[in-house]
């Protein structure tokens, strides 16, 4: 645009310059000369304005999320830090000497890839529902996307070995999302193809679009995903472990750096992963099996807890450990024993009761003898008889039946039979308490 004006002015300038060379200064000539002078002044003003406009066209504003490179005659201007212009207004020499290239560095951009997902019709995409299981239709490699994952190691899965050569693999559908940003504007500008900006373009969407960085990133990301996924099992992929996206990110960054793209992968997310619809049933069954197995284990744990606390109360576990741990000191052990509950506590309580009883009885007996002895020494016969008869009296009082039998003189071999009335309900007690039966043969 500016050049055009220059051209125009270069044609116009000589005309007024030539005219005053003639020296006929009549009235008409004078007025003409004045008019020409006027237009000459106007032209000069226009020229000055144009020059100012030309220089002012060098003012550029770099947005807050951008950094800019200046190309002087096509080559990046400056050295080191100075090569990059930060946000704010800048003045550069006007075109065609300098040219500014603004690169959005601060903005992070998201890129989703569906190329590892099964083909979805537009209706399915809109409804957001999962495709129903269809066990018999194979996956079409032209339409459906998926990743291959490794099988579990033979030793992990089947200790007996099923004779495979290790090339078993699984199929899993995944969806990914990449967030990236331009980290090195210079490398990015120099190496990554972005089509020229045409009037009416939104600069940012050209850079990130189909004719910008998108195809490159999609390819590299898919590459990273495929490369990473073969190292994981399908279970790891489905459980959406963090380390798979991290692995993908690492691989992607390596690739981006290798081609000097100046792009940084900020984050990668595995947004969805599921087994193919063809095998979904068995996967669900296997999930159920895990749950069932968990339930069984939980039940067993509950049982274990109950058994232990029945046996020894809440300190059971700790006490058990202390029994097998020689480093636990006696004090702790005693403390634990004092906290005992349950069956074990009963046992000890019984023993304590026994101890008290035995000791008390012994003391009582001793005391009794102590007191009795002086009396006994004085009247041995009487004291003895009193005691003896006391006991006999008590014994006879508690007897259910009493038979006092007159000894027949000289009746040798006489037999006495007593029918003992056994009470069936008392039988169990018989084993604990000795039932004494005194049967006397008259003649023996």
């Amino acid at each position, binding site marked *: 645009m500016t*050049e055009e004006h220059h051209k125009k002015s*270069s044609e116009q300038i000589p005309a007024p*310059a030539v005219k005053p060379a003639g020296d006929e200064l009549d009235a008409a000539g004078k007025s003409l000369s004045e008019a020409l002078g006027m237009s000459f002044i106007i032209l000069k003003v226009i020229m000055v304005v144009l020059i100012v406009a030309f220089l002012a066209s060098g003012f550029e504003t770099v947005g807050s999320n951008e950094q800019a490179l200046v190309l002087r005659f*096509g*080559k*990046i201007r400056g050295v080191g830090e100075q090569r990059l212009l930060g946000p704010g207004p800048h003045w550069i020499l006007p075109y065609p000497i300098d040219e500014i290239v603004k690169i959005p560095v601060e903005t992070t951009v998201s890129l989703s890839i569906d190329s590892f997902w099964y083909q979805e019709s537009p209706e399915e995409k809109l409804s957001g529902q999962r495709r129903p299981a269809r066990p018999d239709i194979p996956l079409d*490699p032209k339409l459906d996307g998926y990743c291959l994952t490794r*099988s579990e190691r*033979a030793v992990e*899965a*089947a200790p007996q070995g099923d004779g495979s050569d*290790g*090339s078993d*693999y*699984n*199929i899993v559908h995944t969806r990914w999302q990449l967030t990236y940003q331009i980290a090195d504007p210079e490398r990015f500008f120099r190496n990554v193809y972005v089509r020229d900006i045409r009037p009416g373009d939104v600069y940012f969407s050209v850079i990130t679009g189909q004719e910008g960085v998108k*195809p*490159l990133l999609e390819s590299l990301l*898919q*590459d990273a995903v495929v490369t990473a996924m*073969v*190292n994981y099992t399908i279970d790891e992929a489905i459980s959406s472990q963090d380390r798979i996206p991290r692995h993908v990110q690492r691989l992607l960054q390596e690739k981006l750096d290798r*081609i000097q793209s100046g792009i940084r992968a900020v984050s990668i997310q595995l947004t969805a992963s599921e087994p193919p619809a063809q*095998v979904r049933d*068995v996967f669900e*069954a*296997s999930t159920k*099996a895990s749950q069932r*197995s*968990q339930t*069984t*284990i939980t039940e067993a744990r509950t049982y*274990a*807890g109950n058994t*232990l606390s029945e046996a*020894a109360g809440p300190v059971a576990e700790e*006490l*058990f450990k202390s029994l097998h741990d020689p480093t636990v000191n006696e004090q702790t052990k005693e403390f634990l024993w004092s906290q005992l509950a349950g069956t074990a506590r009963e*046992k*000890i309580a019984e023993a304590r009761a*026994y101890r008290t009883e*035995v*000791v008390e009885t*012994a003391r009582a007996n*001793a005391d009794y*003898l*102590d007191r009795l*002895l002086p009396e006994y020494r004085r009247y041995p016969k009487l004291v003895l*008889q009193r*005691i003896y008869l006391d*006991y006999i009296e008590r014994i006879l009082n*508690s*007897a*259910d039946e009493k038979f*006092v039998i007159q000894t027949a003189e000289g009746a040798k071999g006489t037999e006495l039979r*007593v029918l*003992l009335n056994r009470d069936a309900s008392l039988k169990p007690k018989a084993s604990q*308490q000795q*039932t004494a039966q005194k049967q*006397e043969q008259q003649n023996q």
Partner: protein
Amino acid sequence: MKNVAIAIFVALIVITLGLYLVCFQVRETESCLVTTFGRPTRAITEPGVYFKWPFPIQQIHPFDSRMHVFEPTPEETTTAGGEPIIVSTYVVWRIAEPLEFFNAIKTVNKAEDELLRSRIRNTQNNVIGRHYFSDFVNSDPAKIKFEQIQSEMLADLQQSIAAAKFGIEIRTLGIRQLKISKDVSTVVFERMKAERDRRAQDIITQGNAEAIKIRTEAKSKSDELIAAAEARAKVIRGEGDAEAAKHYKTLEANPELAMLLRNLEALQKILENRTTFVTPMDVEPFSLLKGMPDIDPNSPKK
């Protein structure tokens, strides 16, 4: 004065216009080829300002030197083991030598269609044909040579492109999709099902085993605890017995009497319940049943 200024100005404009005819810029993102009467004479890869003869004599052909991505359509290949595999690759390439590129192909689209496509296919068949499927995916991660395969392909392609002198530089090559044919996918699904079923069985068996282990452990723990408690109980009983024994000393004053008392007590205890008592009449005090005893109040016997 005025004239001088104008003259300088005109001269400036003429020079500018002249420079436009004989100068050209090579941008950072380009490389240029200068042709003289249609014959390529100079290749420029460094950015900056260069001179040339005006139009009919010399002409400028700029080439974008940035990276292009080319994704050929996926094709089925066979591995060394004969398994079919569908590998989709992509190639990142750029024009490195404008002269060679100009001589060989001239345009980006032609380069991709005529040159890269067939060579990538060759490379793919070569390299994949050297490897077994188990090099791509393996249950043992240590045996996976995926990245190695990719770098082999890159080296192979770089070599064949360099040998052809097309002025193209292959920056990188990678596999973006790894797929299997329809028929194979059916087989894979069968195997996945079988494997899952077996896993489910394993999980249940393991769960049961674990549960049994937990139960047994708890049982033996509680048994052990009770045994330990019993041992302590025994000690306590022993203490009791020992303490009781201390009082036996007192009994030693008259062991006979002590023994008698003890026997009587035992007798009473033993005969406490369910006793049928049969006794002859000769024994005291039953002898009283026979009649009045003969007692002399004045002279008791002994």
